[in-house]
């Protein structure tokens, strides 16, 4: 198990005041909040920061952590291998955790590191699951899933694996793996949510089961960019195809289409295929597919090719590719 240096995670000194810790946490949380940050590791960083804050902001947990930490550092100095951390037996005697913290359950309360769980146990996520005769609907659960863009074009049934916090028979929190067969409806867009009725947490008493909400992201695609319902694809053309016009085959998520390239097409020209984007739902119009033309140059590697370029140069003697750059300093 890896020892987590929570002070280092927050970038504060070991004797930092609660205010310093709060300030450092806020600053990092703003920087790495997955909804605010586009950094690829934002979500992982945000979890680490949240966990460090959860321990250091709580005087009881911080004291316990400090006690374990200083012992670990002595062992490190004594030559025990790095990264190998085991909590000493009986380390937590003398600390009493009041076990509060019901209402800050949210982002930070999920997915603690093994290290955190070895020290503090896994807090049962459904803190309100008590032996009670109360009737209460189950909690709604949330998860993010990645799907293929193509699935939004055709609709599809996909198996999705989720790890969900749950309580085992002894009331301990465990991560339970489960696989769901989910119907991906045609016309689904990135950022939208699917609601799976009755797939959330169990209700209390005879309360109904909660719902499961899946936030949809598209897996990054080699060819396509997506904006709402519109899909963009770059289509490389040979110079003569762009200049003379051509009929070429272009890929779309729903299969190849035959495209007529008008003569005299410049790079960057967009051809719109109306209604060939992500299909509309409930009467909304389908998105469009935009084919953005790019021009690929054949190499001048052979004598014949070089002669052809020379001939073109002679034929287009008046052509100034930088004409648009002239005419004033603006």
């Amino acid at each position: 198990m890896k020892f987590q240096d929570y002070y280092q995670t927050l970038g504060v000194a070991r004797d930092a005041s609660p205010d310093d810790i709060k300030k450092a946490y806020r600053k990092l949380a703003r920087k790495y909040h997955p909804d605010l940050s586009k950094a690829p590791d934002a979500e992982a960083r945000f979890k680490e920061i949240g966990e460090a804050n959860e321990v250091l902001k709580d005087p009881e947990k911080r004291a316990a952590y400090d006690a374990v930490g200083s012992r670990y550092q002595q062992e490190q100095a004594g030559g025990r291998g790095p990264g190998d951390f085991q909590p000493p037996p009986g380390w937590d005697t003398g600390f009493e955790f009041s076990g509060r913290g019901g209402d800050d359950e949210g982002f930070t309360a999920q997915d603690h590191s093994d290290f955190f769980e070895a020290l503090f146990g896994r807090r049962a996520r459904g803190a309100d699951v008590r032996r009670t005769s109360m009737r209460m609907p189950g909690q709604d659960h949330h998860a993010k899933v990645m799907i293929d863009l193509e699935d939004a074009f055709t609709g599809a049934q996909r198996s999705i694996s989720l790890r969900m916090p749950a309580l085992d028979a002894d009331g301990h929190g465990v991560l339970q793996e489960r696989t769901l067969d989910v119907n991906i409806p045609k016309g689904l867009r990135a950022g939208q949510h699917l609601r799976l009725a009755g797939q959330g947490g169990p209700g209390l008493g005879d309360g109904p089961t909660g719902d499961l909400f899946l936030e949809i992201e598209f897996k990054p695609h080699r060819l396509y960019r997506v904006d709402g319902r519109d899909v963009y694809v770059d289509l490389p053309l040979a110079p003569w195809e762009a200049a003379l016009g051509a009929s070429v085959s272009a890929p779309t998520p729903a299969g190849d289409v035959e495209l007529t390239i008008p003569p005299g097409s410049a790079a960057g020209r967009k051809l719109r295929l109306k209604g060939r984007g992500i299909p509309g739902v409930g009467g909304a119009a389908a998105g469009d597919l935009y084919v953005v033309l790019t021009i690929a140059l054949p190499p001048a590697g052979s004598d014949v090719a070089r002669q052809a370029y020379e001939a073109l140069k002679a034929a287009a003697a008046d052509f100034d590719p930088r004409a648009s750059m002239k005419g004033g300093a603006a």
Partner: protein
Amino acid sequence: MRSSDENRVDIVEEDVQLTLDELCRACRAAEEQVRVWVVEGVLTPIGDAPHEWRFAGASLRRARLALTLSRELEVNPPGVALALDLLDEIETLQSSLRRRGRA
């Protein structure tokens, strides 16, 4: 555990309108909190009285974002409203970048 898909699947943003109670449960927010957001214009339900409120499906994402902003970063409700407006604007700008193939 494997569950089959006999249950309903809805696209929240297309097919679903949420009552105050449903929205609170779905994003685990207190009712009081949601009422404050409505006053601040973070969420705009249709209907006059809170028990008549119906929130568009897109409110779910907004409410969850608002909740993390206020919980994790202790942003106050007017600040949440401002942050969400700015995030919308960033989204619009990013979408125009995407259309140009630069993001």
